[in-house]
């Protein structure tokens, strides 16, 4: 009797439809939970990369949110393993767009006689950027709680492509091919940008802390 009932249940088109819809909803929920885990795991690093690139916390948060929304809307159906490279590609693309927009805006303002401030300077804390009269060098800065600031400042001073190459290759531990995909350029360009970035950073920082 149980077997008959089970057969009836599975063969009923209505109930099969319900079962299908229910499994779809379960799958969607699981997908959403996985996406939530993925985004919460990557959001801080994404924010830091965007902040280094833009020099502004607010703009960085906007960039991260835009990248998250684009990923969710366009690629949530993709396998979870592909989300990381896709997210970085979207984020880096948005950062490049941000640079282009700012560049055009600054040129326009320049023609109109305004001289926009560098966002990094504009948002910088004057106390943090004031010259250190106590002779506190980068070495001392690097060994205290705020030791990453010198590195971040040095990264901000790099050209965007070198900055991206260094953060993706070294911090995100992405391969040359993955980095090239994220940056939308050739592997040769990645190697060049990364090599120059490392050389530049070491020149600026190594003598102080390594």
């Amino acid at each position, binding site marked *: 009797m149980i077997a008959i009932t089970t057969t009836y249940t599975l063969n009923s088109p209505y109930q099969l439809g319900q079962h299908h819809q229910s499994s779809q909803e379960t799958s969607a929920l699981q997908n959403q939970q996985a996406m939530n885990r993925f985004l919460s795991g990557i959001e*801080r690093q994404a924010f830091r990369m965007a902040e280094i690139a833009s020099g502004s916390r607010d703009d960085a948060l906007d960039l991260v949110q835009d990248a998250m929304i684009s990923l*969710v809307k366009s690629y949530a159906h993709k396998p979870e393993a592909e989300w990381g490279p896709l997210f970085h590609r979207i984020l880096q693309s948005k950062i490049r767009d941000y640079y282009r927009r700012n560049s055009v805006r600054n040129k326009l303002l320049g023609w109109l006689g305004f001289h926009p401030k560098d966002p990094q300077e504009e948002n910088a804390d004057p106390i943090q950027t004031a010259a250190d009269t106590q002779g506190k060098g980068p070495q001392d800065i690097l060994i205290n*709680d705020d030791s990453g600031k010198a590195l971040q400042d040095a990264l901000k001073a790099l050209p965007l492509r070198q900055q991206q190459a260094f953060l993706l290759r*070294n911090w995100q531990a992405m391969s040359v091919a993955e980095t090239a995909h994220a940056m939308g350029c050739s592997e040769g360009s990645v190697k060049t940008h990364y090599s120059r970035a490392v050389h530049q950073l070491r020149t600026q920082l190594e003598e102080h802390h390594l």
Partner: protein
Amino acid sequence: MSSHNDFLNRSRQQLDDSIEHLDGETLSRLNQARQAALASQQKHSPFSRNWLPASVTAALSLAVIGSWLLYSTPRPDNLVQTAQLDDLELLSSSTDLELLEELEFINWLVEEENAG
């Protein structure tokens, strides 16, 4: 080489440390950004699920109307075929051809006389 690797490792460590101590407001806004992104997924899914049957119905209706319009009007192919059949009838009639040849001959004679 060791120095190079040390530099890379230390840089990585410093960047990791820098995100461990983000301020509360930044963390809160990151959380909001994530929730907004996930909400866009929720909005996106029901939309596509609800509109899928309507889209399929519309596509099928368009296909049916298109087919009906296509087959209800005479196609150029049919016209060409009809013209070819007319030509075949003319060609198959030997008397008509002879008449045409005679007419051409009579015209030539008239032209010769006029010229002479």
